[in-house]
């Protein structure tokens, strides 16, 4: 453990730093998104309203996640959309779309479904690094144990001096 610290604290050694948070072309995408919404508002007002309210978690995630790659938004987005999709289809297949939208937006269960699906995306995003870290840790432990076993066999065959310890000869 101390060795690991020593290695990690070696002077002059710089750890790989995460690039400063930026979203290259974020304004452009926001502009496109805005343009899409205006178009959607012009040609499909009910859908636009439902999407605007239903996709709030994804929009918030996109705004909050300042990383180079907005993985939080990419994780929440698909599930958020999946939660919204049945209601969008209900709007698209219905006759009085605005009334449907209004009913849906006033239905607490609709909000619950949409936001739970977005919440599921958040949970996935939160849990996945830990799962990956756990898997990687086990992998490193396994490989290290194998190497230590090899060293143990060498010490058994040649004595502790094979590892550069005190050579009795």
């Amino acid at each position: 453990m101390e060795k690991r610290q020593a290695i990690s604290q070696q002077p002059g050694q710089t750890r790989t730093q995460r690039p400063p948070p930026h979203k290259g072309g974020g304004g452009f995408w926001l502009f496109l998104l805005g343009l899409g919404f205006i178009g959607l508002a012009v040609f499909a007002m009910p859908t636009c309203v439902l999407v605007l309210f239903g996709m709030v978690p994804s929009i918030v995630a996109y705004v909050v996640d300042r990383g180079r790659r907005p993985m939080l938004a990419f994780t929440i987005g698909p599930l958020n959309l999946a939660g919204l999709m049945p209601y969008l289809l209900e709007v698209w297949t219905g006759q009085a779309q605005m009334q449907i939208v209004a009913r849906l937006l006033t239905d607490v269960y609709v909000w619950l479904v949409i936001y739970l699906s977005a919440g599921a995306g958040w949970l996935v995003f939160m849990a996945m690094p830990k799962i990956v870290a756990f898997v990687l840790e086990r992998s490193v432990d396994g490989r290290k144990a194998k190497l230590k076993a090899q060293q143990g066999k060498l010490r058994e065959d040649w004595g502790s001096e094979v590892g550069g310890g005190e050579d009795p000869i």
Partner: protein
Amino acid sequence: MAKPVATAERKSTGVRLHDRFEILHDAPLDELRSPTAQAYEVKDLRAPGTGFFALIADPTLPPRAQELGVLRMMRHEAILTPVDFGPVYWAPDDRRCLALICERPAGGRLVAGNDQAITPWSDEEIIRRFIQPVFPGLKALATENTTHRAIRASNILFRDASRRHAMLGDCFTAPTAYDQPVAYETIENAMAMPAGRGVGTVADDLYAFGATALHLLIGRSPGGDLKGEALIAEKIRRGSYAALCGDQRIPTILFELLRGLLVDEPTERWGIREVDLWLQGRRMTPKSPSSLPRASRAIQVNGEALYTGRGVARALVRMGEQSIHILRGHMLQVWLQRTLGHKPTSDGFALAIADIDDTQGPAAIHDARLLSRAAMALDPSAPIRYRGLSVFPEGLGCALAVTIAQHGDPRLLAEILLARLPQFWIRVQPMQKIEHPVLLREFDRLRRLLEDTRPGLGIERLVYDANPLLHCLSPLIERDYVDQLNDLLPSLERAVAGGKVESMVIDRHVAAFAANRAKQLDDQVLTALGEPDPATRLLGQIYLLAFIQAQWGPDSLPALTQLLGKQAKPVIERYRSRITRARLDSQLATVVADGSLTRLVHFLDDLAERQADAQHYARARQHYSRIETAIEKLEVEREQILETATDMGGLIAAAVSAMVGGIAIAMSLYHFGYL
């Protein structure tokens, strides 16, 4: 030397040598004993009735190897010669000793001791009973270029029962001139300690021959009541002839001979040729002996007025360290140059003082070296005198052996060699001899040997190199009188089996003895014996013993192999592989059971296996290092897991969301009939 196959027979009263001679230890022959060897009756088992007797040599004295060989080949009736010799178990001393079988002289010994008075012989008796029978022996020795160096009244035996023909007794059981009283030795030899007199020359034998003749003539030891230093001083003061004869009237017939033989200057002393001519009736007038260079004015040293370099040297040596201020002052040098006026002496002294800047070692040792060099320069023919020791360069090896065998301190003798005093002695000799360059090289070699402290070398090796017949003086086996390599391992085996040895079998004496006797022994083995690493040291021991076993046997040495096998753990641990170690451990007992050191050494130190072990170990280390690097990389990877998981988690979450959302939308579309 003959192979000793002595058998101890405790039940009988004797011990056998080479299955031929039975030495009866309950039948001593006091009339034939010498100061350094007891005499006993011997039965010749092959030819009963033959007259032999045995001399049991003192084990603390090295026998004279070269002379033993020469005398054995020569077998002259005028000299006691050994017909056979070898170590035997000597029950009275409960040890093995060197036994020498000689033909028994029928007439016994002239006198038991040098101080024993006899009825003076007439001049005719001396010629007929002593000179005529003994001189051919001296001639034969001179022809063989060897010396007797034990010619004295107490060493005269009679070869016939009527005691008409004298012969010379034992000269081989002790070092050269070891038992010679001062009266029978030249001034220079008398100054030397008994063990340090060196081989000497025929001239020394002739001097002793003359002194013995004088003893017979006057019926008592020459020199009267004077003994030791007093007699030496008298010889120096008056000359040997005058000092030994005293007021005794010498018959005319012997006067020339004694005068010629007792000349102090060796080059002026009668030689073999002169004595031979004298015996043939040719009468010669001995040259009047030239005296040492004498100064016209005395120098005062320690209250004595001295006129000769020899006198000054003796006075300085007597003063010891107190004489250093005289040596460092100018008075002595000026006296030598201006008053004594003998250039070789003053040059030699200048040479001795020139090394005054040699300040190696403690001041006391440095002063002793300076004093020794100065004494040599002032009296070049005298022995090396150093801190109470007095020894000729040729006698150094023997003196060392006697000192070590008698548990004395050999350090002073070693200091003589380290200080290069023998080389200085040779340099200041007034007459350079043909053998001097060889001696110089030999002393340089011995000095290097002494400085090499590895087992098998050093002072112990020097002792065995200088005394070829000396037995191994290791405390473990000294009582076994091991004088040949084929006896070494059986003796060590007995010592180990008897529980005398707990760990290291080879001490410095065993190593030096083996290295001296086995000339082809690899030097690396001796180096290994001195290594601090116990494994290398043990391997060195096993290699050395295995080498001897392979060459000289015996085939099986169970106790030795067992002892060395028990200590083999560090050697086995030289292998890195635990598997190899375990295998060797499990097989060791089987190998040890064979009793073969050769097999043990091959088992423990297999070169191919060691190389393979080293290669595999290097590979294992590399592999271990690579794994270590991989683990470090994994740790770095672990540090970055959170970041990776965040990135990957976001992507996966988006993908999962898109997939689930897509399915839900599709289901909605299907429900409303759009699909």
